[in-house]
């Protein structure tokens, strides 16, 4: 391993430990790296958007391929900076409205077509386990879906039959959230494993 590589590993280890130091208590070293991280992230976006949007997506097609019509989104994009002025901030709305319009247009149908229909079709078909229809599972899915939707239906007070159904819904929801919690623990622990593995293998490895 070259000296430069060892330096890189030690640098990474120092930053890792500096952040872990927060576990003991908040301290100036943690604050320093925290602010450095915020700045570097912002700088990363600066480099990335300049390169991928201004240069590749706008300037090159405009200047090299003669796609003059890109002046329109370029102008609308530039007007986003009007947000920094009190007087002309409304000009930023033009670009924003365009993005909101296109995104909403795509969302409107993709949500209904991809999510609502897709999930309803999935519920109306019998559930299968290893290719065999499982009616118990099918019943659980149907009851779970209906009671969950009823629990989240707030336009009518949860009383009587509606209240009873919503109560079953909350049990289903709690089981699902429990599963979610279990998975979340797994995810967070995995991230810790990544760092512990780095410190043990790579960093302490340079000292062996």
């Amino acid at each position: 391993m070259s000296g430069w590589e060892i330096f890189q590993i030690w640098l990474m280890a120092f930053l890792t430990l500096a952040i872990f130091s927060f576990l003991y208590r908040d301290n100036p070293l943690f604050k320093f790296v925290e602010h450095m991280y915020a700045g570097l992230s912002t700088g990363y976006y600066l480099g990335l958007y300049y390169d991928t949007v201004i240069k590749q997506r706008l300037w090159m097609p405009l200047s090299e391929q003669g796609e003059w019509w890109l002046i329109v989104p370029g102008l609308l994009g530039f007007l986003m900076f009007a947000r920094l002025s009190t007087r002309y901030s409304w000009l930023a709305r033009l670009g924003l409205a365009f993005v909101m319009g296109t995104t909403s247009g795509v969302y409107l149908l993709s949500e209904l077509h991809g999510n609502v229909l897709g999930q309803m079709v999935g519920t109306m078909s019998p559930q299968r386990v290893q290719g065999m229809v499982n009616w118990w599972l099918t019943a659980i899915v149907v009851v779970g879906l209906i009671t969950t939707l009823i629990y989240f239906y707030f336009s009518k007070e949860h009383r009587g039959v509606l209240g009873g159904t919503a109560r079953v819904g909350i049990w289903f929801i709690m089981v699902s959230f429990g599963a979610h919690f279990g998975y979340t623990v797994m995810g967070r622990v995995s991230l810790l494993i990544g760092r512990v593995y780095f410190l043990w293998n790579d960093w302490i490895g340079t000292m062996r």
Partner: protein
Amino acid sequence: MNLWQQLDKLDRRWVFLLVWIAAVIPLIVPATFKISISPEGKSLFEAVDRLPDSSTVILTFDIWPNALAETEPMERAALHHLFRKNMYVITVANIPLGGPSVAERVTRELAAQYGKTYGVDYVNLGYKPGYVSVLRGMGTSIEGIFPTDNSGTPLSELPLMQRVKNYEQVDFIFVVADNATVDYWVSIVNAQFRKPVGAGVTAVMAPKQFAYVGSGQLVGLLGGMKGAAEYEKLVGKSGLATTGMGMQSLVHFLLIALIVVGNVGYIVTRQVARTRERKVKA
């Protein structure tokens, strides 16, 4: 103050120390574990395996750097599988911070192992903002959305991209994501362009994706580091995820022990308080 009350007021830094110890022990005393394969992981592997050799696959790097411990092993295992089957791989990132750089590093490293040539066998499209527009727009023209690859080379100069114009020429989409973009690969690309999508996601996101697997909108699913370990086992290339299973096991056991101790303490303390209350009333 009895023992349970003292435990209830325990400084959290002792808990932190226990977590450290549980995470480090498997490194000092390494052990191998049998990794079971979930039906969702198996069906993703089989869907990729069933694709004819030399198919074209989009592999996404919709990942931030923070969850690399979960996602990078998935990307590596997927690339082993794809390159081994001589698939043409197009990588794309819908996350600005991390995805494009990680794709560059990981893909080039594995491509070198399999003797693959950039531009011919694989291409890194990089990142463009607005994933809804990007996913939808790629259905009409990939070049329209990505005029150049991640390094700034025009797509027209890359042989692979001269052939692949939109989703029509793509056979499978292997999404690796640590955020909601996977939902849009399903609701836009799978639903509107009828392309099969399989996903490897972080553990935090996995429970939601079961709904998509159940409806057939995702052909399979890898959930978190365990899911990555499953794919590593299926492709026969063990990596960080497989190694991490020992640490994962021990920390999970510790957490369950902490929950049990916390609850026993809670029940005992509550019982003591109730008895005292009854005595006062009497």
